[in-house]
């Protein structure tokens, strides 16, 4: 049987650290890079007698995530204890949600531009929406560091609000998995729910993957993959694992349900543990926390739902007459989209503003790894620069020079233009008339050529005017005027 006769079924469990000021169940600050164990208290250290208190902000953010992803929020949501022993878990149980999570259902629309660049030309399921099972809220564990003969634990991270987003087994390829993570991340960042940076551990994912033959109803045996800390790692690990599973089946072996680990250095997956080692988590309702009634939270959060990336993209295309691609670049990040809108609103040529942002501004920012929030050119200043070019007051090339100075100095376009001594070109017809008349009088041959239909000679005559005006005339205006006079 050919390898193409197999297809993969993939489901993702994504953990996202929520952007809250304090932890899930205590007042300790959520802060990265603080000295180890300096952001702790009896609650997040699991000291005897300490009790958890819910972080309302974390609940609201999770409900907002649900609204952004089209989930429903049940009227009552509750908290459960998930029991297992590990030194990075202070209570040896994790407060999580078992059967009544904050969000159910929903889906993640896969953005065309969220696919890996090399895969965007051949998307198998354009417009696909990956269905979600649920989203629940739980607490993060501490961070262990292992030394040669001991381990140390930093509890600063323990108790950070962690949102778990579980997809249905609805993803068919490594590329779709990549697009799912990328689209999801974009939405979470849009909602200001998380920075969702996988490489910083703010977004982590476990992947379930199985393969089966086409035509086979029953899902194949699934393997859980761990330890992928970037979207491209997820893609690579899945590609490797799907190939491996097909080979196993092709060579007559079966798949045993197990957890495998991605080794990025070796570029392969490795067996961690089989299902026999699986935990019985003994979930039960946490008696320390009351169930949450969600009606009031939903009402409050509904007022805070932001425009989603795809909605913004569609609006940009119609409102600013820009291409779908440009709109997707500009809408890819909320701060960038806001920047563009500030610059484009009231601009003479919003499309030109889009070009400047994408072709000039972004390349400089990306080169210096500068986030748009730290952009040295205020959006209003960029609009002024583009308008100045549009009005013909400086040339496009002069504009680029001005832009370069603005990036370095943060000066306004007016200041730079003045310093550079760029003078606005001679546009005034009255002033130009004399020069043009002189040139027409002095060049009868080319004038005749123009009159007899040789339009190219207009360029020669324009050049003569430019010479006479020492380059100060606006060549566009000059050729227009010559054309009129000789027609």
């Amino acid at each position, binding site marked *: 049987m050919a390898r193409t006769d197999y297809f993969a079924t993939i489901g993702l469990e994504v953990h996202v650290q929520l952007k809250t000021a304090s932890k899930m169940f205590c007042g300790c600050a959520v802060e990265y890079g603080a000295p180890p164990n300096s952001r702790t208290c009896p609650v997040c250290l699991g000291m005897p*007698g300490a009790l958890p208190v819910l972080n309302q902000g974390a609940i609201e953010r999770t409900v907002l995530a649900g609204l952004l992803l089209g989930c429903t929020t049940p009227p009552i949501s509750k908290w459960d204890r998930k029991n297992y022993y590990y030194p990075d878990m202070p209570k040896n149980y994790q407060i999580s949600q078992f059967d009544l999570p904050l969000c159910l259902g929903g889906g993640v629309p896969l953005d065309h531009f969220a696919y890996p660049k090399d895969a965007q030309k051949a998307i198998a399921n354009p417009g696909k929406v990956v269905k979600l099972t649920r989203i629940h809220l739980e607490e993060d564990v501490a961070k262990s560091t292992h030394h040669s003969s001991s381990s140390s634990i930093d509890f600063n991270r323990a108790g950070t609000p962690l949102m778990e987003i579980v997809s249905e087994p609805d993803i068919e390829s490594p590329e779709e998995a990549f697009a799912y993570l990328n689209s999801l991340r974009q939405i979470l960042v849009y909602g200001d729910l998380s920075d969702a940076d996988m490489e910083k551990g703010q977004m982590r994912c476990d992947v379930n993957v199985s393969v089966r033959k086409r035509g086979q109803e029953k899902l194949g045996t699934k393997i859980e993959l761990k330890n992928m800390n970037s979207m491209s790692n997820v893609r690579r690990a899945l590609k490797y694992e799907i190939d491996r599973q097909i080979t196993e089946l092709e060579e007559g072996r079966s798949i045993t349900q197990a957890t495998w680990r991605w080794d990025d250095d070796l570029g392969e997956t490795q067996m961690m543990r089989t299902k026999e080692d699986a935990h019985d988590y*003994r979930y*039960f309702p946490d008696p320390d926390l009351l169930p949450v009634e969600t009606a009031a939270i939903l009402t409050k959060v509904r007022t805070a739902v932001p425009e989603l990336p795809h909605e913004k993209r569609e609006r940009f295309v119609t409102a600013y007459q820009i291409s779908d691609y440009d709109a997707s670049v500009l809408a890819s990040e909320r701060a960038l989209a806001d920047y563009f809108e500030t610059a484009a609103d009231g601009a003479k040529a919003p499309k030109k503003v889009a070009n400047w942002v994408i072709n000039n501004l972004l390349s400089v920012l990306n080169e210096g790894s500068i986030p748009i929030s730290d952009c040295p050119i205020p959006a209003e200043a960029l609009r002024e620069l583009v308008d100045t070019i549009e009005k013909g007051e400086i040339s496009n090339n002069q504009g680029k020079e001005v832009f370069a100075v603005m990036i370095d100095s943060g000066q306004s376009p007016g200041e730079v233009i003045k310093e550079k001594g760029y003078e606005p070109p001679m546009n005034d017809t009255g002033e130009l008339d004399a020069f043009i008349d002189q040139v027409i009088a002095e060049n009868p041959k080319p004038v005749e050529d123009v009159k007899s239909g040789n339009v190219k000679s207009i360029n020669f005559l324009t050049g003569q005017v430019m010479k006479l005006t020492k380059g100060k005339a606006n060549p566009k205006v000059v050729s227009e005027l010559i054309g009129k006079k000789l027609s």
Partner: protein
Amino acid sequence: MSLATHTIAELRRLLDAKEVEAKDIIDSVLDAAEKQDDRIGGYLSWDREKAYADAAQAPEGPLQGIPIAIKDLINVKGHPCGCASKILTNYVAPYDATSIVNLREAGGIPLGRANMDEFAMGSSNENSGIKPAHNPWDLERIPGGSSGGSAAVVAANEAIAALGSDTGGSIRQPAAFCGCVGLKPSYGRVSRFGLTAYASSLDQIGPLTKTVEDAAILLGAISGSDPNDSTCLDESVPDYRGSLEGSIAGKKLGLPKEYFTEGIDPAIRSAVEAAAKQFESLGAEIVDVSMPHTEQAMGVYYIIATAEASANLARFDGVRYGHRSPEASNLAEQYAKSRAEGFGHEVKLRILLGTYVLSSGYYDAYYLRAQKLRTLIRQDFTNAFEQVDALLTPVSPAPPFKIGEKASDPLAMYLADIYTTSANLAGICGLSLPCGFMTPKDGAREVPIGMQLLGAPFAESTILQLGHHYEQATDWHTKQPALG
């Protein structure tokens, strides 16, 4: 008469009249403890200097100058908090429990660590991981448990009052056995923040005192909502003491027939029946009621309490604090050995039971079914409190047994809680107070008999008022054990 025999209310008058100072009271109770506690074992430790220092800083309030013994599982900053367990040897509390913050704000002085059954698991104080406590009325007998030390030090005048905790009867039963007053507040009345959890949905901190009036004073001081405990309700705290005097004429008291069945000792039955007569003579009306699910309470209690305990006690792993086995060579061994060495037998038994009832495949049959029955038990009380103002029952079916007598029979021991666990499952309040004395068949010394007044959630005022009127009409509470 030594100051140590006085009540909070009496000492308040003496302190306010400047006839005595806080230091005199501290000395009086600790001198008594120094003299006799090696025989009683009510305390695990005390710190006279810290008590003096706290007394010097105590703000004005109903408890100013009053030293209060604290059960060894309530966190008092800078004091040991070992839960009478070897696994918490040398553990010092890093913060004050909310009840202690409230106690201090009322001027109270946390004094000494009262002995208890390890992690509050037991009914006899024999499960203390440190040492057993003895009943001041008969040193061969148990003081009850798990707040056995708290009850013993109050009865033996080694403390003016004490704080205990009640998960299935752990305040009321030792109070009955030692002849003092014990109150289990309604669930959510007193913050649990800082109370080392045994069973979170059942635990409540409450007072053990010499009189009902003192219980009202102490309850008023420690109660109130707490932003650190989501299960502590935002109910205003009434003037419990001020409402003691109001008439009880016309109050309806229910006698649940399921509490007066065959297993009860005849002396206890007749003492409680005599108390019912006393209430009638005070103008109350006695009504027979039925609580059909009473019989289920014991089983439901042991499933829910141990399930919660199995998770609550998981944190004692030797990683961050407490006993860490020096023998371990890997992580799994460190867990297993630290816990095996640190926990006592009963605690291990209950963790195993709790782990079992939550296990996949057994959860529905045990834990879930127990929760459903818990709802029915609660419903029994709701129905009863539609007919009556309070219920009158015995506290324990039998008098305190001799130390060691039932050590090998946990089930017999569990029966000691048969009349008390329902209140915790239903979240209602319960008051235990002396209603007589008896000489057990196997002994020569008299021991106290306790009765229990059960009230609807947050109806502490009602049962305190009833108890106070009964106490005023009787003199059981004035008797003192002969410690010599």
